[in-house]
């Protein structure tokens, strides 16, 4: 890598900095530090959260300078972009030479320049060829023979494609980053909550409704538990896709088992519950009793208008305590409502306001299914990068380059002199092991 620049031009300084390893190391450390910030400072919160947590000055700074979405802010994207440029320049600079080196087999000239590792004098009347052939076949599987005017050469090499390894790994990284960008610009992502039996023509993308281009109906939504109130076993949505009112396809969408229709993929991302009908409760206050039915989000008078209550929401399993309903209560149509939970299986639990005690008779629940809907043409680029990683890592780290040559020379008396030459620039340990084996095996030939 050490280059002597003959004419120092400003362009070569620029290129030198862009391809420098110091820049790489610096950017990697910067990215690690910025990524840490993103796990310490809560992400994607409304501005008030930051002021409350960090105070006026620091909170304002964090929010105003983009630390609330740090992975999408210049703090992160700028180093990522520079790193991509750095990687790209290194690939441009080194890949052609790596390809040339990989395509170039070991030449006799290069082989003869390798350092000598062992020397044997073969006994007269013994032909070394057969021995050398068998030893090399066992060690290298494939090798070449070359005849020079005064010498015979056996050439073997391992890991000739090793120089390509690092470039494949870095190209893989570029593919992944490109895939991320493609997804950002040409992808589409939204959510779609569906009730059982409901048909939708549109889904929500960033708070706006967007047509699907077809219709989708949720025929059935099932939430199964291993045991009541325990770990969920399966979320399953049976979907029908309709085009121009005609049924086009049916599919079952589960977690880990998404469904694709017309380029949009539906993921079973979550579910929610809402009341299937009005909630029946008994209310006690002192020694008075009343039974009421509460429809969703409607104020209902209690005890002749003394207080009013409203059903805010229901939950199928509130923190593991079973079905629960959240109520809001207001005294005499005035003041701020008080909000509290009532639990069906544990009516004694939880604070309830002003001496009133609510006991739900049953909480009829209906689950609805929530889908993540998206199209991401970048995914295949990302996956291509993932796949390219594998040969890249294999070549870079597990195929150390070794070059070997066995040189045969006949002296005046017709005896063979055998020399073993070899080198491995990076991997001394494997090389030493190979060398030991080769020397031992070749030596056996000289003693017979």
């Amino acid at each position, binding site marked *: 890598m050490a280059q002597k620049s003959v004419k120092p031009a400003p362009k070569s300084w620029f290129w030198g900095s862009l391809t420098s390893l110091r820049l790489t190391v610096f950017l*990697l450390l910067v990215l690690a530090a910025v990524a840490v910030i993103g*796990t310490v400072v809560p992400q994607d919160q409304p501005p008030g959260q930051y002021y409350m947590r960090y105070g006026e000055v620091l909170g304002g700074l964090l929010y105003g300078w983009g630390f609330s979405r740090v992975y999408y802010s210049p703090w992160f994207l700028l180093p990522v972009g520079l790193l991509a440029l750095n990687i790209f320049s290194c690939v441009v600079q080194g890949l052609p030479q790596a390809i040339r080196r990989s395509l170039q087999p070991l030449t006799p000239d290069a082989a003869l320049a390798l350092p000598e590792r062992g020397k044997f004098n073969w006994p007269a009347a013994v032909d070394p060829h057969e021995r050398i052939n068998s030893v090399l076949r066992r060690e290298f599987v494939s090798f070449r023979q070359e005849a020079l005017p005064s010498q015979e050469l056996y050439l073997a090499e391992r890991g000739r494609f090793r120089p390509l390894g690092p470039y494949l790994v870095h190209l893989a990284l570029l593919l992944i980053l490109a895939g991320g960008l493609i997804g950002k610009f040409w992808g589409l992502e939204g959510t779609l909550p569906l009730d059982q039996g409901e048909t939708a023509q549109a889904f929500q993308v960033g708070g706006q409704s967007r047509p699907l281009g077809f219709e989708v109906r949720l025929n059935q939504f099932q939430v199964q538990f*291993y045991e009541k109130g325990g770990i*969920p076993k399966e979320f399953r949505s049976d979907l029908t896709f309709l085009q121009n009112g005609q049924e086009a396809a049916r599919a079952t969408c589960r977690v880990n088992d998404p469904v694709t229709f017309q380029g949009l993929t539906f993921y079973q991302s979550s579910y929610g519950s809402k009341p299937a009908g009005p909630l029946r409760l008994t209310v006690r206050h002192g020694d008075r009793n009343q039974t009421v039915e509460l429809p969703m989000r409607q104020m209902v008078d209690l005890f002749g208008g003394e207080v009013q209550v409203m059903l805010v929401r229901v939950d199928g399993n509130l923190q593991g305590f079973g079905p629960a309903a959240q109520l809001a209560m207001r005294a005499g149509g005035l003041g701020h409502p008080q909000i509290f939970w009532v639990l069906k299986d544990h009516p004694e639990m939880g604070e309830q306001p002003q001496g009133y005690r609510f006991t739900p008779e049953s909480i009829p629940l209906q689950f609805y299914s929530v889908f993540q809907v998206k199209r991401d043409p970048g995914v295949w680029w990302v996956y291509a990068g993932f796949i390219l990683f594998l040969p890249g890592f294999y070549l870079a780290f597990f195929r150390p380059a070794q070059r070997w040559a066995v040189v045969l020379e006949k002296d005046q008396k017709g005896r063979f002199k055998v020399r073993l030459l070899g080198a491995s620039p990076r991997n001394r340990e494997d090389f030493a092991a190979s060398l030991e084996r080769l020397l031992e095996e070749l030596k056996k030939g000289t003693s017979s």
Partner: protein
Amino acid sequence: MIHQILGAVMLLYLGVAVLFLMAELWSSPRLQEVARRLLWAGLGVHTAALLGRWTGSYQLAVANLPPAGFFDNLRLVILHAPLSNFYESLVFFAWSLPALGLFAFRRYLQGYLGAVVATLACLLLAYASFGGVDSRIKPLMPALKSNWLLIHVVTAFLGYAAFALAFGTAVLYLVQDRRPRASLPPLPQLDRLIYRATVLGFLLLTLGILTGAVWAESAWGHYWSWDPKETWSLITWLIYATMLHARLLKGWQGRRIAWLAVLGFMAVLFTYFGVSFLLSGLHSYLT
């Protein structure tokens, strides 16, 4: 039952650590050999315990839903590898340390390094046994029902184990660098071992992240969503990537590389423990 067996394995690892230390202090090759054989024995029992737990969760799954046909059965076996909660991950992490040491770094696993590996494995098992970790076998929640579970967790934890080895070696390096001792391996050899363990860990961590990304894409529709576990694994990856590149820079060899290996392992520990306890996210079923 399996819980008690693992407790015994923990004591065995402790004994192995002590033996390795004694072997080093008295420079006794025979003790080294005894310690190594005992470590093999511990790994054998540990493996049996893992398989026993695997059978247990498989049987629970069969009781819940009998499989239909061979492939359904095979899928059930793959899904119920004992890698689905915090307890099981601790036990597997503890397993991967001696396993990786004995299989991939056999030549180096002796003396102080052997003691480091056995001690770390012992500590992890002690945490699993006495840390108040829920050890019950539970059925799988829907998000975990994926063929990627096995390969994702196995690559991630083997990667962690390789980084633990690099960390242990780096500590030895720093000690040796400050106060050279004849009983410790020479610095260049330690440096090479740090590098080799890091390369293996880096490959495995990369595979762990990639398989996790493919899994997340099919489960939630995002191959990357800046979940704290994901982010911290990326931070860990960046630190080790820094280390692999910095080795090639002038002035960064030796001590700085060893410090980076220590820093990297701190990031590994935070990715594993810190994220589970301090930050919440998609991996929260681990706790």
